[in-house]
């Protein structure tokens, strides 16, 4: 069995297989990524670090491209500002 990692997305706990990207964990948690300038929810688009739609705050650092970063234990991810 692959190793598991537990993190939080906007406070909600998510457990994923080690090696999962933060973007995948956000989608798995049933939440969206950023909110657009006119207030609509957005999710990942390109999956390769180009479009910036999946950006989120990770452990307090804003504007991280969550598709390019792997989940780690106790990571705190926020997509709600």
């Amino acid at each position: 069995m692959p190793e598991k990692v537990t993190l939080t997305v906007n406070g909600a706990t998510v457990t994923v297989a080690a090696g999962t990207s933060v973007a995948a964990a956000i989608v798995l948690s049933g939440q969206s990524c950023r909110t657009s300038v006119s207030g609509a929810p957005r999710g990942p688009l390109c999956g390769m670090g180009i479009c910036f739609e999946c950006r989120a705050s990770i452990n307090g650092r804003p504007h991280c491209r969550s598709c390019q970063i792997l989940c780690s234990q106790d990571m705190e991810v926020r997509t709600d500002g």
Partner: protein
Amino acid sequence: MGDTSAHKFELLVVGGGPAGMAAAASAAERGLRVGIVDDNEKVGGQIWRQGLASSPEPEASDWSKRVMSAGVIFIRGRVFHQAAPDVLLAEDGDSAFKLEYDKLIVATGARERFLPFRGWTIPNVMGAGGLQAMVKSGLPIEGKRVAVAGTGPLLLAVAAYLHKHGAKIPIVCEQASWKHLLQFGIGLMNQPGKIKQALQLKGELAGVPFSPNSWPIAATGTTALESVTISRGGRTETIACDYLACGFHLVPNIELPLLLGCRIHGGYVCVDNLQRTTINNVFCAGEPTGIGGVELALVEGQIAGLGASGRNFEAQKLFRQRESLRRFASRLNRAFSLRPELRNLASPDTIVCRCEDVRYSRLKRYASWRSAKLETRCGMGACQGRICGPATQFLLKWEPESVRPPIFPARVESLTCARTAAAAK
């Protein structure tokens, strides 16, 4: 923080996909001190991105072994600026660093082209390669309904991958016509290897409906995608789905060669026989010189790596193979060229620039990319026009222009380093 650490290489390769791996291995095996800088965890690029559960393709793992055993140094980072003629600046996480080189090979690959249609900004509408990358990095897809749409050979490869991983694929919509696809298919007769690949894909796609002359016209859903409406042979049809994997072939990543001043023609980097650009000591290989796929990227990468090592005679032996792959690529690109009807997909209130939520009706008032950028902020957001640029090029025939550093959003500290590095040089 103002101090910038430096890496020095005889050859620096930007991009660790097939072209970059082939270039780096070829040069390092001939004694050069070579570094690869790439934005991802590992080499492989998008096409050979390794999945969590699956083992890498044999060809990918062969090249990866060659890269490692030749002593190529892998650096994770994203190049955002040029500090001096032979110095690039990159950052990763909290650090910025200099990359100094004698010779440079740009192997920055391609991205998907996205075309705006109603609802394309709803979560779970993703690129075709985009969704595949997400699944490879842990997004569960088993039992999910995924409509696949757009154009290009990537669609079938993605559909086969998702199908194999348990997704239900209600349809694969290909905008190209049967006529174009058949002409292309007949062209394959000269390429037995390609026929084998195509037959293999067909086997993997057993039971998945493939529909040419079809394209998405609207996606609907409130907080996430619920259904997609397609135009199929002149009729519209609505299909319930959890994901829409949608991409319209590929566009090259030419921001770095533009920044370096390399000559670009028709959207691609101009290179000579040895893959040299018009800038001294700068080579380019793979998709930025023309969309051509893995095999062409590997051959161009090897030629560039050999050229950078001064092994021109060895490089020449690969010219014929490159020629044949380039001919194949140009047939492929013709077969999957975009039909003009797709220009009508965006309605006046469709968002074209996703970063700044600029709608199509606002953009149509402007004559050029530059004036639209200044007046509407289209292309001025975080992606710097990487998504809406190719879309407006198709919709409005706007030509992209020069780039300005930083070519990727960078932290203020990194930009300070850029200034220090430039002053020190």
